[in-house]
């Protein structure tokens, strides 16, 4: 029964790809039905209505066993609900958004594949199973970013995403191997750590940092963050599902899952916390100067992921998971809202060509407003609670990171208000914005449901920390309230005063606009170095191997042959005579 949770989306992907691609209606039905079934089973597992299935052994060698099974604990229950719930809503939204696309069956097959891989990560019982699904998620992300593969930008973005992920995954794999060699097993079980107690500190630090590499790639931390903003080339529901709510959160989920390993190395935890904090601030700064509505949200996602990773690094993984949950709802809501706007604007994404959409798209406006409030951390919206929890964790362990996080919160409020005012208020700034109208119900209903979660998910906090870690960290609220309220309020006031009734951006900071020139830096260092290596290899192939070895040996044989021809007289009978004379001489010398 519970296996269907994992198998339903896989079967859907296979069935659509192999059989039902020409029949659009049927394909959509299969895909949505499969994710709905998964959601129901996830609900059943959550309520302990369905028991977790017994695992089966996949590989068994002497002293080493790899199982495929379900690890059902509060952490994975929560994550399963997020993945399948948000996944279901986004499937429904895609019915409307992708309605006119000729490749819609292919799209839904890939979405199903993604849901399958993501569920696999969540329920994985050991590192190896997680790694397999981890890579599958990377593949489905690649397929979905490059869904409009005839667009060069989209296929480039897909390759960039895949390669950046591979860099991180390689570190993750090394980390898994190191873990295996130290403990002799790959299971997620704190009991296996006993052999690690005698291990030298820096070996553990290296192992934890290598494992963290997986998170750096998947959750787009600095310095591998470059793929996420480009991934917005994919269809908007994909951006909402994969690049905001679930896949990029997999890194944070993984860190929470293996926190029992992470906490062995406090110095590695410090590195994790600082990488997260710096990513949060850095991405928020970039987001203040982006014009593409989806890119603003993408950098905002980066920033929020930085928050979560920082929380894990500070030792507060329940707070990170809490923020992951609320962020999944309100960021999916914001992306779907952006999708609704883009749909109405006939695929225009520049926010300075929108404006005045408040009256024309009331449902989108109100739901987007709720999402904005939740992301900005306005009190009593869900984002407020989770952000407070993370700030509290940061204050307890790294006061410096607390101030970075607080500044990020202010910036978040600022750039979200900038986006919100520019898109929904003021005059219509283009022809398309003047004629925009509300999206169909199949797109607005998921918005409304998600906004309900964005409003109320925060109140689960009071039970959530207990649910995730019965004897662990408590979430505190009171002490940091004044600071966060002040920074959020000042961000809002600044945004309001700067962007009210503007038709073009009044602020221009090239450094932020060009994303700190990181892409250019990579172009000039890594890419240039790779090009150099490529040219060196091509030169070696052409001149050393091609000219030197292949043609050189042929040339040598040819010249040698020509040289030996000088000794030929062209008379076969002469050869035979000399040959027999030689033999006779030899015999004479031997026997006399």
């Amino acid at each position: 029964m519970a296996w269907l949770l994992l198998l339903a989306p896989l079967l859907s992907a296979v069935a659509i790809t192999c059989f039902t691609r020409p029949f659009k209606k049927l394909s959509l039905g299969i895909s949505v039905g499969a994710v709905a079934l998964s959601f129901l089973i996830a609900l059943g597992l959550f309520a302990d209505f369905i028991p977790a299935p017994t695992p089966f052994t996949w590989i068994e060698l002497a002293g080493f066993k790899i199982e495929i099974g379900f690890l059902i604990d509060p952490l994975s229950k929560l994550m399963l609900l997020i993945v399948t719930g948000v996944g279901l809503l986004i499937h429904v939204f895609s019915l409307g958004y992708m309605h006119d696309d000729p490749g819609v069956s292919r799209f839904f097959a890939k979405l199903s594949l993604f849901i399958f891989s993501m569920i696999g990560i969540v329920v994985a019982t050991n590192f190896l199973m997680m790694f397999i699904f981890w890579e599958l998620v990377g593949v489905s992300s690649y397929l979905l970013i490059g869904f409009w593969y005839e667009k060069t930008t989209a296929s480039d973005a897909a390759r960039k995403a895949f390669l950046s992920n591979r860099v991180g995954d390689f570190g993750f794999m090394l980390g898994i191997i190191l873990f295996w060699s130290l403990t002799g097993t790959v299971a997620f079980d704190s009991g296996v750590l006993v052999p690690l107690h005698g291990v030298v500190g820096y070996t553990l630090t290296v192992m934890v940092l290598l494992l963290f590499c997986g998170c750096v790639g998947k959750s787009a931390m600095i310095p591998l963050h470059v793929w996420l903003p480009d991934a917005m080339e994919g269809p908007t529901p994909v951006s909402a599902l994969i690049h905001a709510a679930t896949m990029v959160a997999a890194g944070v989920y993984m860190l929470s899952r293996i926190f029992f390993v992470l906490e062995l190395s406090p110095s590695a935890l410090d590195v994790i916390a600082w990488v997260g904090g710096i990513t949060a601030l850095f991405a928020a700064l970039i987001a203040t100067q982006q014009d593409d509505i989806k890119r603003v949200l993408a950098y905002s996602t980066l920033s929020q992921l930085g928050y979560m990773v920082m929380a894990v690094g500070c030792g507060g993984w329940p707070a990170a998971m809490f923020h992951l949950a609320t962020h999944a709802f309100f960021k999916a809501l914001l992306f779907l809202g952006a999708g609704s706007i883009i749909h109405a604007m006939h695929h225009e994404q520049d926010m300075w060509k929108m404006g005045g959409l408040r009256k024309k798209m009331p449902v989108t406006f109100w739901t987007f407003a709720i999402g904005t409030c939740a992301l900005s951390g306005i009190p009593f919206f869900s984002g407020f609670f989770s952000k407070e929890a993370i700030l509290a964790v940061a204050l307890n362990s790294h006061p410096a990171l607390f101030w970075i996080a607080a500044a990020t919160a202010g910036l978040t409020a600022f750039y979200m208000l900038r986006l919100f005012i520019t898109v929904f208020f003021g005059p219509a700034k283009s022809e398309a914005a003047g004629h925009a109208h509300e999206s169909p119900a199949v797109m607005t209903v998921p918005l409304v449901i998600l906004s309900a979660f964005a409003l109320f998910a925060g109140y689960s906090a009071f039970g959530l920390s207990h649910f995730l870690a019965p004897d662990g960290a408590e979430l505190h609220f009171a002490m940091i309230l004044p600071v966060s309220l002040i920074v959020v309020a000042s961000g809002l006031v600044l945004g309001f005063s700067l962007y009210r009734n503007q038709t073009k951006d009044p602020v221009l900071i090239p450094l932020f606009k060009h994303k700190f020139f990181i892409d250019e830096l990579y172009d000039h260092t890594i890419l240039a170095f790779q090009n150099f290596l490529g040219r060196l290899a091509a030169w070696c192939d052409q001149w050393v191997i091609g000219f030197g070895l292949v043609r050189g040996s042929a040339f040598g044989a040819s010249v040698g042959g020509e040289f030996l021809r000088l000794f030929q007289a062209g008379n076969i009978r002469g050869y035979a005579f000399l040959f027999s004379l030689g033999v006779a001489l030899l015999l004479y010398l031997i026997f006399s």
Partner: protein
Amino acid sequence: MEPLTLNHYLGAAGLLFTLGLTGVIIRRDLITIYMCLEMMLNAANLTLVAFSRFNGNLDGQILVFFTITVAAAEVAVGLALIVALYRIRQTTKAEDLTALKF
């Protein structure tokens, strides 16, 4: 009449061998040279059989079987080469084949 000894056989074989070698050296036609080569092989066979007969073991005769087998294969290949050569050059004269000379 005195009985045949090993030396009689070896003498006959040596005569055959010299005949063959002389043929190879002085004849001009490739096919004749080839037949002379075969004669040299058979001279060797004759010595082997003679030694086998007079030493009272079968090693020499077994070796002869091998020689005959290899010679058969060699003849097949060699004659095929000569036929192919004739098709290209319209000649089987040894002195016409001087392409290897610089």
